[in-house]
């Protein structure tokens, strides 16, 4: 039986990789995938705590996070397609209309 702390550390590493990816990539779709990675890291933490506390609530929360992630992916990708139609690019450095 491996200590559950390891799962939490793995979750932290995955979250950090996702956060770094959001900061260093310029392609909007890849940034979006990194956000999904961060959501997955949080899901792993939820399941770990659920296992630690012998509770089912964490798993239900993961279920709802997946629902929200599906909705977010649909709307977010629609936004990216709309941006691509207007500006012919998905590079976030070129999408600076609201930058002061």
């Amino acid at each position, binding site marked *: 039986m491996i200590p559950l*702390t*390891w799962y939490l*550390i793995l979750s*932290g590493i995955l979250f950090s990789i996702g956060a770094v990816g959001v900061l*260093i990539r310029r392609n909007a779709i890849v940034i979006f995938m990194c956000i999904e990675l961060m959501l997955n890291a949080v899901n792993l933490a939820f399941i770990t*705590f659920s296992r630690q*506390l012998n509770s089912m609530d964490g798993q239900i929360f993961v279920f709802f996070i997946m629902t*929200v992630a599906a909705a977010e992916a*649909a709307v977010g990708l629609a936004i990216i397609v*709309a941006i691509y139609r207007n500006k012919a690019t998905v590079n976030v450095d070129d999408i600076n209309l609201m930058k002061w």
Partner: protein
Amino acid sequence: MLESLLFLIMGLITIVCALCVVFQKNPIYSAIFLIQTMVSLAVLYVLLHAQFIAAIQVMVYAGAIMVLFIFVIMLLNLSKEDVEGGRDKLFFQKPSAIILGFILVVMIGTVTLKTVSQGIKDEYTPEIISQIGNTQLVGKMLFTKYVFPFEIASILLFAAIIGAIVLVKKRIIEDEKV
């Protein structure tokens, strides 16, 4: 023993694939590596006695959501220059982001190792879960304690469908007028 070995292998695969998602140049490769990350996370969920969530992870995340991603990548059909991204506008962004990421990992690791986790333990031990069945328990919780969030989720998905259609359709209507 076998469990620890499986955790180590799957954890390693997860981290390597997550790094590949970030550092691959081509978005399609990033998407493929993200699918592998999700599948190995599903294995970890099985290790944590959450079989239903593992199945949902493979079907919804690796199946539905990632297909949507790959579909959009194919639809946009980005050129080579667009994929490479060209020169950074902020000069020191990448190195500082990686350094800060390392600091974040160290901070999360320290906090996790130092904290003694407490909390009221519930009744669902792995033995009871395997006796009743994980899926059955999730279903029971969804339709008793969490029935209101469950209904709200349906409205959220409906709103997402309408939002996606409206966002993408706008241009088509304008084209028809012209």
